[in-house]
């Protein structure tokens, strides 16, 4: 692993949901770690389980198996059972700002809640704390009496970020924080997040399906498919030397606008067929029905994650052991 301290470690994490139509293996044996002050990116399409990983880390669901360690302490319990201290340290920004902010509460009320719950104003002056936060997230102070639901996407997401920062956390899960925003507002919000990371010593788990964005925010990237991480590498390596066929497929499908980016993309791999649902995960390597390089072994044996190069991990039968050039 990289030098530096691990702040969050996930080992063998599994989250299975029992539904009337069968067991949905949303997260199926996922392991990774996030370093202090790092942005770790988790990429994947719908059904990959990336959001569920974030939810389990936050305690919205309890894990079916595996462990989650935060700053050395085990945190695999639901949010209701977590000590208050822990709740302050871990926060999340949800994807859809419209549903993550109560439409019947004002911006001031939403921002005040975390301060109040954790008694973070020594003199009882919560208003001052709220105003300071408004300044930090660059919202005019008069907005404090407005309803969050009436603002634009960018303002809403700024409020969601402010709410997450209020308790002074060390680690924030960013679940597609800008997917619902326009490109120019996305830029503003991402810049804000990067600034806060530096100023407040934060570590991020950045979940998104937008690979171009990921390229510019994360130091390490893991890509998920149907509940498993299939490749994990440092960002430059991940984008210039993708190994797994799914990574290549995803990268070749990214819509880009400059010729340099076009040149960087791997050769076009057309995906055949639909993404299988997490209900009937194919046997063996779950990607094999769509893989253009499928071999017989792929249909039966689940590939294990190996370290192909320094820091570059992949789970694919095309790479059965570490590469020659380590």
């Amino acid at each position: 692993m990289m030098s530096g301290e691990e702040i969050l470690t996930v080992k063998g994490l599994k989250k299975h949901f029992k539904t009337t139509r069968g067991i949905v293996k949303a997260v199926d044996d996922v392991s990774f770690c996030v370093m202090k002050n790092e942005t770790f990116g988790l990429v994947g399409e719908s059904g990959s389980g990336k959001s569920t990983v974030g939810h389990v880390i936050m305690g919205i669901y309890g894990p079916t198996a595996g462990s989650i360690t935060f700053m050395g302490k085990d945190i695999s319990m639901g949010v209701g059972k977590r000590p208050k201290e822990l709740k302050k340290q871990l926060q999340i920004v949800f994807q859809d700002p419209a549903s993550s902010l109560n439409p019947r509460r004002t911006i001031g009320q939403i921002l005040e809640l975390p301060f109040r719950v954790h008694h973070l104003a020594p003199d009882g002056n919560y208003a001052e704390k709220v105003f300071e936060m408004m300044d930090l997230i660059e919202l005019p102070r008069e907005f404090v009496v407005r309803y969050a639901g009436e603002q634009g996407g960018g303002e809403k997401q700024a409020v969601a970020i402010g709410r997450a920062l209020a308790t002074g956390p060390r680690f924030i899960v960013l679940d597609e924080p800008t997917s619902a925003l326009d490109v120019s507002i996305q830029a503003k919000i991402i810049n804000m997040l990067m600034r806060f990371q530096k100023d407040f010593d934060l570590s991020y788990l950045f979940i998104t399906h937008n690979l171009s964005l990921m390229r510019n925010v994360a130091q390490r990237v893991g890509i998920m498919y149907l509940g498993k991480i299939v490749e994990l590498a440092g960002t430059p390596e991940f984008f210039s030397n993708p190994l797994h066929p799914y990574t290549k497929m995803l990268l070749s499908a990214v819509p880009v606008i400059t010729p340099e980016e076009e040149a960087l993309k791997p050769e076009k791999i057309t995906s055949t067929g639909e993404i299988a649902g997490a209900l009937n995960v194919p046997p063996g390597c779950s990607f094999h029905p769509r893989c253009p390089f499928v071999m017989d072994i792929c249909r039966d044996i689940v590939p294990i994650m190996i370290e192909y190069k320094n820091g570059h991990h992949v789970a694919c039968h095309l790479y059965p052991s570490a590469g020659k050039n380590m």
Partner: protein
Amino acid sequence: MAEQLLEVKDLQVNFKVYEGLLRVLKGVFLNVGAKEKVGIIGESGCGKTTTMKAIMRILAANAIVAGGTIAYRGSDVLQLGMQDLMRLRRTSMSMIFQDPTAALNPVFKVGEQLEDIVRYSEFTSDAPTKQEVRAKAVELLKSAALPEPERILDSYPFQLSGGMRQRVCIAMSLASAKDLLIADEPGTSLDVTIEDQIMRELKQIVEERGLSVILISHSIGAVKGFVTKLYVMYAGTMVEEAPTGELFSNPVHPYTQNLLKAVPKLTGGGVPEGIAGRIPSYITIADGCRFASRCRSAKERCRTDGPPAFDIGNGHRVACFHYGDI
């Protein structure tokens, strides 16, 4: 030059709301030739969908078309009587919407919905038999790259995946689009690999049938590979028009330049800066260039007069006083 299929000139649309008058569209222009593929990019709320709804005359009840003309094949759509308008919608132009789940009625089978449309558009005069209608529906599904069309006709929308639903919507629009297809953000609610697939299929279908297309998107990369001419919209006005390659290699309007810069690049380069300021409110919007309040090179003239579109050669037009004067 071939005769223009669709010519929108100086379109002005307002909406009456409690707070006053929303002056949304101002001076909007758009030209689509036969078999031409045209794209409109711009951020949420800039009026792209409103323009399309004006063309198909499906604006909300509180909309007022305050000026301008929409010439479709020579005749002004805005002046058409109901009969002529319905014929136009059934046999000539059609629209694909952003969210295929919302566009399909969940309590009817796909076959019932598709056959309804087929009956109205393909067989306008004679009464077809059930088999004829069904055969036509199957043919449409096949041309939208759907496997097992018979099974899909007998399914409900919730039984299909997102990609398949969107293909069904495409098939439905092909029934009535003989000349013009309007696609409003067709890939937004889909995964990247599926969106890539659908857009390629759509391109093939469109070229096979010789359709004209207006493609709307806020994903600039998705539009680039599809259309030959691009329009950029901002706050209800058209700010730039150019052939695709020309727009990307030589964007001249300050908003276009900022917009293209704000897109994160797959090759890296850090997180781009956003655009300072906010989209103006349509109620209090000032006269003059609507981008003036956020433009770094705004002159006095820009704040008082609305710039018309100036021709700068190569089929490139821009609505900015830095490129012309009246």
